[in-house]
């Protein structure tokens, strides 16, 4: 076989973590759709098993395909993605207030989902090829442009969650490329600028801090002026954008800040999820015995709130198992990133890990009431084809890197 002699303990462990999470997902989806009153969702766990089977095939393909090929084709993928995202604006299917999918009949194809990997490929390719310190500012700008184009297109759909994933990939890979932490902080300043801009005084204070920071760090005239300009821009347009946000997006942010605002609407989801998890206790109410799950109190429980089902029926025991398995994948992925000799592959590992981590934090954080409702699924566990395939593609990339770590 192709892989003979290459399969390490880590590769097997990564694979088993993915299998364990996927299996747990099937169990939880079974419970989530097994309600006290008749539901049209029964049998979804079978579909999920089919998705897992399909994902495993793709996983094998990703493991077997040489990383070198992706490295070469990175920009081709990237251009293809941009075209798809543009095409989506004209031919995409509209649903739930946003335009995210192509309807392929049997499957809703969501380009932004696979776009997470493609953005990672493009960034990895770019950052692994440019390493001269003198070009650091240019590198920063180009990397930002590479990410901001698809981010803007996804934000247009609108899909806040996925665009935040893209930005996370950028931040982590830039850090991995050797950019000092202070720079990362400066890159992130526009976000703080946005928050501060809701009140004139807070924004003036914030801006004074930025100027002070630039005087201390002295990142060069070009960089400084860009940072000042970007912060000015964000500070000024945020109130404008806020007014242009879709009502449900504004509501989500507001309700995240205060779930009590709308205990029957979006806040209802968070409250019911917290009740489900909190009522589970240390060992949970038992399989199929969660009242929040069984009696429909828990919203979209087979996808976004699958973790709440775990929390209710299996308690802290079940909840910590999922966090633990995720932590193992992330830890092993980072170890591989350090170990691999190929710089491109190293970026891929870090990026894959950060995608998995970001969505885990956002999704579980949401069920615990720590994060707003973004609609990001929990990798491996939530019901859904796109998410499952992406999970196994990311895992495939990690396993591929682990197996071929010695290759340059």
């Amino acid at each position, binding site marked *: 076989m192709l892989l003979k002699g290459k399969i390490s303990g880590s590769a097997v462990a990564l694979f088993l973590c993915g299998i364990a999470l996927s299996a747990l997902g099937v169990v939880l989806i079974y419970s989530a759709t097994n309600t006290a009153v008749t539901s049209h969702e029964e049998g979804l766990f079978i579909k999920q098993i089919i998705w897992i089977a399909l994902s495993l095939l793709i996983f094998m393909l990703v493991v077997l395909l040489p990383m070198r090929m992706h490295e070469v084709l990175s920009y081709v993928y990237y251009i293809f993605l941009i075209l798809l995202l543009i095409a989506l604006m004209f031919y995409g299917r509209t649903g739930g207030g946003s335009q995210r999918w192509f309807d392929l009949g049997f499957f809703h194809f969501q380009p932004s989902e696979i776009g997470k990997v493609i953005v990672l490929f493009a960034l990895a390719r770019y950052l692994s090829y440019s390493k001269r310190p003198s070009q650091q500012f240019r590198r920063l700008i180009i990397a930002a442009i590479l990410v901001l184009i698809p981010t803007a297109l996804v934000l247009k759909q609108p899909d806040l969650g996925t665009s935040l994933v893209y930005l996370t990939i950028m931040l982590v890979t830039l850090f991995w490329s050797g950019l000092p932490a202070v720079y990362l902080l400066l890159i992130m300043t526009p976000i703080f600028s946005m928050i501060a801009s809701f009140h004139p005084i807070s924004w003036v204070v914030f801006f004074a801090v930025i100027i002070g920071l630039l005087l201390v760090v002295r990142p060069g005239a070009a960089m400084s002026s860009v940072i000042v300009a970007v912060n000015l821009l964000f500070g000024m347009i945020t109130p404008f954008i806020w007014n242009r946000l879709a009502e449900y997006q504004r509501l989500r942010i507001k309700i995240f800040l205060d779930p009590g605002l709308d205990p029957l609407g979006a806040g209802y989801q968070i409250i019911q999820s917290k*009740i489900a998890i909190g009522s*589970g206790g240390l060992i949970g109410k038992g399989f199929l015995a969660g009242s929040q799950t069984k009696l429909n*109190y828990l919203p979209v429980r087979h996808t976004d709130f699958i973790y709440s089902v775990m929390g209710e029926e299996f308690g802290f025991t079940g909840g910590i198992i999922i*966090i633990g398995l995720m932590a193992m994948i992330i*830890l092993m992925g*980072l170890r591989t990133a350090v170990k691999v000799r190929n710089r491109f592959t190293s970026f891929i590992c870090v990026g894959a890990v950060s995608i998995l981590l970001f969505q885990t934090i956002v999704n579980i954080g949401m069920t615990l009431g*720590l994060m707003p409702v973004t609609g990001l699924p929990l990798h491996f566990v939530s019901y859904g084809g796109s998410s499952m395939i992406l999970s196994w593609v990311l895992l495939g990339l990690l396993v591929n890197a682990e197996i071929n770590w010695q290759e340059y």
Partner: protein
Amino acid sequence: MIESQLSPENRARILIFIFGLLLFVLAARLFVMQTIEHEKYYLMSEENRIRLVPEIAFRGIVYDRNGNVIVENRPLYTISAIPNEIEDIEKISVQLSHVLAMPAEQIAKRINENRFFRYKPVRIARGVSFEAICKIEENADKYPGIIFQLEPARKYPSGGIISHAVGYTSEISEKELMEIEGQGISRGSDIGREGIEKYWDSYLRGRDGITYLEITAEGQIVGNLPQRDNIPAVPGKDVVLSMDYDLQMYAVSLFADTLTGACVALDPRNGEVLLLVSIPSYDANLFSGVLRSEDWNRLRENPQKPLLNRVIKGEYPPGSTYKLIVAGAGLEEGIIDRNTKFAACRGGYRFGNRVFRCWYAAGHGALGVVGSIAQSCDVYFYQLGQKLGLDKFAEYSRKCGFGTKTGIDIPGEQYGLVPDEDWYDQKYGKGKWPISVILNLSIGQGEVLTTPLQLANFYAALGNGGNLYRPHFLRKVFDRQDTTETKPEILGHLPFSKSTLALLKEACVDVLYDEKGTARGSKIEGIRFGGKTGTAQNPHGNEHALFCAFAPADDPIIAIAVIAENAGHGSEAAAPLASKIVRRYLEKNNLLPEIDTTEMMVQDSED
């Protein structure tokens, strides 16, 4: 430009630290929610899935002494809305407003205010007519989310006849609900507000039941909660009152339409209340279910005060009916004996520079105590009272049960008033009141006030040999398990010796049977019974007519007090009325020799 000095290993360590920290925050939050906060969330999840449906207990049935049902229960229809199933609140409200004759804004407001619990029925109207229910049910598709529920409410078949005795019930308020939480009473239950319904509420009320249902987020009922047993409603206990419903009805019928007043009859052998009438009355059914504000205002603003229970809350000067107390005191204190005579009555009595009149302007002449009572000579009592003094007057009044509550088992009883020196000092200032007040008090006028119940109780004691019983309605409380019977309770004794009592009794009989007795027109042939007329001065209008009696004179089975407001002399309005009631009651108890019938038979045979 600053180049990063970090090796890939160190960068990885930083990432592991940051990522690990983030995952740790999740795990920590998870742990806190599932341990420290577990209890709170568990209760919330239970609250979510459990709906408590109260089952309102039936109140006990009330019977009269002869087994007639005088208070029972009827179904009350309540219209409720389930907010979740209503799309257009405005539209539904307008539709309902036509059927229920309620303002649409009020309905819409009520639904909107309770929209928060979207599956919980919001009560819109209670006590809806059966016709309205039919209209809504026939067009159920036009009223999505509108449901009706059935609960028990009080039914008073007699309307207003027994209202002042039995009282009424109405829905428990939120405030009361908080105060008596945990006593098996739920929102929407009725509690007693007046009369027997209030005083014996704890017997009559019963315990409301609870059905535990498991419900989905959509409000769909999954079934009974397996882990919890439903609590069945326990109906209230049934009670038997001492009231004689026939007699009560008869007494009410005797009050002509324009006549206001009160009448109460007791059984002198044990203090049982045989009838309690206060006119005008009100229909207790108005309060059961939903009291309409126009009904309430009409009752409240009526100058004749239909809500006032005159028997226990009406405080009247007793007039000459009080002379028995003064006479008894005089006999006991040795001021008079049966033969003592004072200055003859010439139609008035000069005291200082003022003349106190006798009601009989021609004058009674010189009478003994018996004659003075029978003919109600005021001049005799002016002189007796003067000798008796205010202190003794007050002392004997109190010992005869005046100035204090009788302890009857309906709420709101008034004390009446027995004035003494302290009272006058307080009211007018020390020494600033004339000594002559005792003259008026001695004939039951002036400041002394009594309730009809106090008078009836005194005359009952006079008849039964001196025992002041506690007047009561409750004879028996029973449910399926057990029965409790009320025992008569003696609260005190009249401060009169046997001979005094006998003399007073004789005088009372003379009131009716002596040819000069003031109430001779109201005597009943074939038996002898005792009574006393009275006329209470009324500064606001015509005098009130009073009559108190006990019958038969020996071993009486009924004592009665009647007051006819603004009706003039006791002998004219009150005595005939009391006499009719007494006659009816004695007939019922076969204590009247069938004189009338035999005479008729004799006449028949003569023909």
